[in-house]
């Protein structure tokens, strides 16, 4: 089983975004965290790289990512007023793309801030 360690990893669970976390992985799981709080440790250990969900679902049925991407694009493109929402548990790079997508489909874009 492959082992890997990372130092000064960044935890995205809460707004503290602590970036001094030590991580140790075996295979597709994180088995040990250093300097993380309880919430952070649970966050790191509960997210594995296992293949435990379908790649994609379209109308409740398993689908390929390509099919799902095509369906997603069609729904958003056809909509008269689409909404792009969330943007919290994701990266700035994804957020940046999401704003571009909202622009291309003429939609509303919003985050948790408005709650």
């Amino acid at each position, binding site marked *: 089983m492959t082992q890997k360690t990372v130092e*000064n990893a960044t935890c995205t669970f809460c707004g503290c975004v602590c*970036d*001094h976390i030590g991580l140790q992985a075996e295979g597709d799981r994180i088995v040990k965290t250093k300097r993380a709080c309880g919430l952070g440790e649970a966050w790191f250990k509960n997210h594995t790289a296992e293949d435990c969900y379908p790649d994609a679902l379209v109308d409740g049925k398993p689908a390929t990512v390509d099919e799902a991407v095509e369906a997603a694009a069609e729904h958003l493109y056809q909509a008269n007023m689409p909404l792009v929402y969330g943007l919290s548990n994701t990266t*700035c790079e994804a957020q*940046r793309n999401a704003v571009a997508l909202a*622009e*291309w489909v*003429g939609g509303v874009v919003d985050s948790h801030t408005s709650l």
Partner: protein
Amino acid sequence: MLRITGGRVYDPANEVDGEVRDVCISGGRIVEEVTGADVRTIDAAGMVVFPGGVDVHTHVAGGALNFARAMTPENHRNAAKFTHSPELRAGVGGTTPSTFATGYLYAGLGYTTVNEAAVPVLSARHTHEELRDTPLVDKSCCVLMANNELILDLLEEGETERAKHLLAWHLWAAKGYGVKAVNPGGVTAWKWGKDAKILSEPVPGYSKVTPAKIISSMAAMVDELELPHPMHLHCNNLGAPGNIDTTIETMKVLDGHRAHMAHLQFHSYGGDDWDTLRSESVRLAEFFNEQPNLTADAGAILFGDSVTITADGPWQHLLYQLTGRKWGNLDVENETGCGVVPYTYKGTNMVNAVQWAVGLELLLLINDPWRIYLTTDHPNGACFWRYPEIIHLLMNADFRRECIEKLPDKALKRIHLPGIDREYTLSEIAIIISAGPARALGMPQKGHLGVGADADVVLYNDDSDRERMFGHPRYLLKGGEVVVEEGDIRKMVDGREFIVRPSYDDNIEEYLRPLFEQYYTMSFENYPVEMERLEGADIRECG
């Protein structure tokens, strides 16, 4: 390949003053000659050809500006709109335009290079992310250093050499281009709600470090490191009545070292308080004219809405108390701070009228256009997209007199502008908006149309209404690509980022690491900006 033919060319760096000649472009650069069937020709008959504009001092990206964007939704609501098209991203203009709009608005003036003048190391990653989303212009950054407490601590201990290595390390960590000094010592004093107003007095929290010491040591470090751009200096006592003494004292303290004096307009006042404020541009210009080591930008103001954004925290608190409007403040651990206050300059207000005159006076009284550049300290004095208004004022003394007549009477006694007849020539304009700032920034490929230069070329209609002329370029070429055609932006191209890699002793990292771990709140390893975040970085090795 491209040939611009029939235009009157103004290329002061190469002593070309309005001659009709061809400009040839290949591979993104100016070349001697282009031949062949695939050469596109732009007929520039009746047009004026300039090298692309260079803004030596502006605030267009990063934490402080983005903070201001959030504070002023009303400004964006009423601003110019940029509508989505398959070629162009959407955006809003106004006092703090969104990044895409910033690129369009600069291109819409014929500018192709901008220097973001205030970047903290701690949030430099953010600045570069924004600059990557600022299309159509090449970019560089000045990194805030004169209130960095780790450096000030070394100056306190007399360890100037080590301070220099630390400064160089930070500059590279931030992926910056130049060193910025803002209100030296004053911003760190602001962390206790104080200021540093007297150059010879110790900065609060230090016994040996004075603003004068910071200024002279840091200018020397920048010279020793052989950075292409001299220390970029925002003097103490910005905006305060009577600050002329501080400004002249600062120039003396520099003692022959190179420096670029930013937004000089805000530092050229006489008087004891707001009621007695007056222009001291004559005194300043006379002294400045004798200091060949110095360059400056105007920091002119225009009447209308602005938002003031500066690392000068104490000044911003004062302005908030004066205006009673919104106030934002963002102190950055161990390094710097910034304040944000929306402000409206009014032609009927005596103080604002004097400020308006001082900016123009400096541009007209400093006799060497190669050492004074057009800026408004965007968005502090006015938005950069209003530069054409200033150009018109500089080129047309009659128009200037019409404007002066509208000023309040009590302002007229406090300014020198009515007695100045000088009118700028097109060649001089080309110097103050392009050739001069490019030279001050130490960018040999910018600000001219000689062989080997970047093919950043702008074509204006020759129009006696200079505001209309410079506000509506017919064509703009960025790196040889036609991005503005018949006045319309046709496409988005990415700009490059200029950065420097100064030499420093690698051991400085071992000195810094324990201090960093003690005083900062992030991991040392995560502090430097990763090289791969910069798209198209152009690295200059120094020292």
